[in-house]
């Protein structure tokens, strides 16, 4: 059991619920009457009635108490008022007890459900009475409460003033967190009782039944921790026990009283502090000695509590608003940067990304990539988390402040974040943004252990360390909960990024479409130009040829030489144009997608080349090649070009060896053509595949230099890659890949 000074003990220690103790504290008496009949139903045993409690049966409050007309009117008012009054009001009357001499009891009245309650409190000793100018001081206080700037200042003001008004040794403000753990956030005290400032207590210290009770009962008072309860008797058996929720004299469980005595607390009073209808905290007062507080002071405290609650609501709204505005600024900054970048991730800077939700770490996960900010788990852990998160994030947002309690793979995460706030941007792309928050304990430990300096004078004093440990136990793995403004910020971030991503995707798609269109145009252009160039070259050749045929006798040797060069140049130009024409045409036609037997194709080319090169010694190896999906016509051209090259560039070897192999790979087929020919310098490997690029002069090896460009085009159109390795004098290996589930580009797009 913990050691909070205001703990209510419940459960199997108490047989009665807290609001039906069937007894009162002894510093007053209590009468109850039926609203309906006006007749007395219950009386505390200390009420001086001739003939005992039974003699009160059938009597009215007014007659028994000899109420003045004014008081009677007030009583009637209360009778007709519905159960809205949360506390008793004064009847502005006193009652003199016949048997207690001149004792004047101050009368308080309240109604609860169908019962009217009158409590008579004995007046206080003079020393305990409030100063006469209390009202003026109260006015001043209320004014000051409206003018303080921070919540901290407000709390200090309230606790100080409360102590001044009531005279308790210690007044503190206790605030609940989202899980009903609490901490003392303000305190005003003298040295009679120990300090509790900053102490933390687990939720169990003020269990749910008590908290629920405190919602309804806003003020409670224990005048002495050492009293004998005065029983309440019903005047007849027909009346059920009383619900003393609002009675000031309500008796307290003896267990609790013993507790108080053990703690050295002689008296206590507390006021519920509400925020928007929910219990926010408690204003708690304690004294080492028994203490009663005059009704007027209690009302002042109640008022202070109410004003505090109102202030709290206002401040909370302002705080929430300020936080929202603050986070909106952060989001705006991020949006500006993200919009500028091609990829939104590049626009994220660590400071703002973390500030957006008050996080200690963050990460963006897209597919298998992770970008980490601040204190985020490692990539492998992140991806595991992502998989777990995906089905939970279908509404777009997921948040928790106790990740450890719901995530099964916590042990893998090094820094034990307690809080996780996640948004999904694109589940299809596996794109998520997550923020992490460290557990609370760590935060507090970072700020220093507030209990280091606690004096522990004697064993009777409570041990705050125990409470802290007990509290720590409860909040292990918990982070401070995400504020609504922070979750809003994450949601807004998500919306913006989704829009941005969609925009960027649309832009990319437009760019791609534009690129494709341009490429198509370029190729159509190349085709048209080549086509149109043919005629003039043809004409040049034609007339040069006619010159040769008809007039060569009239030319001298130089003339004939020039003519010869003209003819050969025109021929070459024509060949280039024709080659370009067929190359372009190949690019413009659509790609067929059918099963193609590479082995058959390469085999056929090998046979044809062997036939055309009967004089050469060529050792062929064509391994088992796979069936692929693609355009048979184009792949045949590719095979032709590759093998022709191999044959051509091995022409200087006595025995040429050409090997065609297949290499396994997970999601593609890889084919290689190796020759032992003249090879090439790897420095020029890029040029190999260029159009009309040649690495050897035309005297060494004939050819236009378009073969490999053609092969590259064909392979690329199939969605594959082509590359080569070689060394001068040491042959060459050409590799190309074709995707297994091929979805190649139907029209050319230069990658």
């Amino acid at each position, binding site marked *: 059991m913990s050691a909070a000074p205001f703990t209510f003990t419940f459960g199997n220690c108490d047989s009665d619920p807290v609001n039906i103790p069937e007894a009162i504290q002894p510093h007053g008496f209590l009468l109850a009457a039926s609203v309906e009949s006006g007749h007395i139903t219950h009386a505390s045993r200390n009420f001086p009635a001739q003939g005992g409690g039974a003699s009160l049966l059938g009597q009215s409050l007014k007659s028994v108490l000899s109420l003045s007309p004014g008081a009677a009117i007030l009583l009637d008012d209360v009778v007709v008022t519905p159960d809205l009054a949360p506390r008793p009001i004064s009847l502005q009357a006193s009652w003199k007890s016949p048997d207690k001499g001149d004792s004047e009891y101050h009368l308080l009245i309240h109604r609860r459900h169908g019962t009217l309650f009158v409590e008579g409190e004995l007046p206080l000793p003079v020393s305990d009475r409030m100063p006469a100018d209390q009202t003026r001081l109260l006015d001043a206080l209320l004014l000051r409460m409206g003018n303080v700037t921070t919540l901290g200042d407000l709390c200090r003001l309230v606790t100080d003033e409360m102590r001044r008004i009531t005279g308790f040794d210690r007044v503190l403000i206790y605030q609940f967190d989202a899980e009903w753990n609490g901490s003392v956030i303000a305190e005003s005290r003298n040295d009679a009782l120990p300090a509790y400032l900053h102490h933390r207590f687990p939720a169990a210290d003020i269990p749910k039944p008590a908290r629920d009770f405190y919602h309804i009962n806003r003020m409670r008072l224990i005048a002495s921790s050492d009293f004998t309860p005065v029983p309440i008797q019903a005047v007849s058996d027909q009346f059920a026990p009383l619900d003393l929720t609002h009675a000031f004299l309500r008796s307290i469980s003896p267990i609790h009283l013993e507790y108080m005595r053990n703690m050295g607390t002689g008296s206590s009073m507390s006021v519920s502090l509400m925020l928007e209808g929910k219990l926010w905290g408690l204003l708690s007062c304690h004294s080492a000695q028994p203490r009663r507080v005059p009704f007027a002071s209690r009302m002042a405290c109640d008022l202070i509590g109410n004003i505090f609650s109102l202030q709290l609501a206002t401040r909370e709204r302002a705080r929430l608003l300020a936080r929202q505005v603050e986070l909106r600024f952060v989001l705006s900054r991020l949006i500006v940067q993200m919009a500028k970048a091609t990829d939104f991730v590049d626009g994220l800077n660590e400071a703002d990304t973390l500030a957006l939700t008050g996080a200690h770490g963050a990460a963006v996960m897209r597919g298998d990539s992770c970008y980490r900010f601040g204190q985020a788990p490692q990539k492998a852990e992140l991806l595991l988390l992502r998989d777990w998160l995906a089905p939970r994030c279908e509404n777009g947002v997921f948040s928790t402040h106790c990740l450890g309690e719901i995530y099964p793979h916590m042990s893998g995460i090094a820094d034990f974040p307690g809080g996780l706030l996640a948004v999904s941007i694109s589940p299809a792309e596996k794109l998520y943004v997550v923020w992490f928050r460290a557990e609370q304990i760590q935060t507090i430990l970072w700020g220093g252990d507030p209990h280091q300096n606690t004096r522990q004078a004697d064993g009777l004093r409570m041990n705050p360390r125990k409470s802290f440990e007990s509290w720590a136990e409860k909040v292990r793995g918990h982070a401070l909960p995400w504020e609504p403004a922070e979750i809003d910020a994450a949601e807004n971030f998500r919306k913006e990024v989704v829009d941005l991503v969609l925009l960027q995707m649309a832009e990319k798609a437009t760019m791609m479409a534009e690129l494709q269109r341009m490429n198509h145009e370029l190729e159509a252009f190349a085709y048209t130009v080549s086509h149109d160039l043919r005629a003039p070259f043809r*004409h040049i050749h034609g007339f040069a040829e006619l010159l040769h045929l008809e007039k060569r006798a009239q030319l001298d040797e130089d003339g004939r030489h020039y003519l010869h060069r003209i003819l050969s140049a*025109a021929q070459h130009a*024509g*060949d280039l144009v*024709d080659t370009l024409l067929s190359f372009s045409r190949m690019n413009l036609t659509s790609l067929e997608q059918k099963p193609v037997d590479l082995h058959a194709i390469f085999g056929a080319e090998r046979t044809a080349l062997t036939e055309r090169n009967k004089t050469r010694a060529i050792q062929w190896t064509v391994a088992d090649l796979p069936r692929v999906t693609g355009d048979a016509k184009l792949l045949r051209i590719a095979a032709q070009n590759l093998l022709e090259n191999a044959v051509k560039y091995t022409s200087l070897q006595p025995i040429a060896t050409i090997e065609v192999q297949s290499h396994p790979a997970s999601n593609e087929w890889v084919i290689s053509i190796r020759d032992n020919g003249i090879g090439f310098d790897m420095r020029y490997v890029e040029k190999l595949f260029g159009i009309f690029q040649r690495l050897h002069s035309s005297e060494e090896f004939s050819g236009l230099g378009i073969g490999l460009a053609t092969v590259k085009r064909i392979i690329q159109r199939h969605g594959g890659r082509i590359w080569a390795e070689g060394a001068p004098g040491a042959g060459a290996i050409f590799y190309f890949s074709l995707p297994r589930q091929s979805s190649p580009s139907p029209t050319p797009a230069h990658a």
Partner: protein
Amino acid sequence: MLKPILLVEDNADDLELALRALAKTNLANEVITARDGEQALLYLLREGSFADRPPGNPAVVLLDLKLPKVDGIEVLQRIRTHKELHAVPVVMLTASRMESDLTRAYNLGVNAYVVKPMNFMDFIEAVRELGVFWAVLNEPPPGSFKSAIRKSGN
């Protein structure tokens, strides 16, 4: 009486080269030239300035595809749909093998096509083969019935 050859070609260089190539093949036939499709049709239909020409269809029409005013395809179409002209042999002359209109030409029943080759000597040879095929040569050169004649529909 030998029927003339109608050569329809708009480009001046191509026209001259074609005429010289024809000259080199010793064709005895007269060669009539038209510079656009409209002129070709006027000749074929014996209209306009050709109204007074002697009647009779040409032995063969060497028709360029791309012509101003009325293009080659349309001329072909008119020929093939005309009661008296539809049997006239037509050979298309094309700038390249890749012309898309070739399909249409096939569908319209062109007899053959010649790709104007880059090499002039090849062009002379092609024209000679045409001459042999349409039997318009004065005296057939030895071994000129080649099996590898380009034929429409191939």
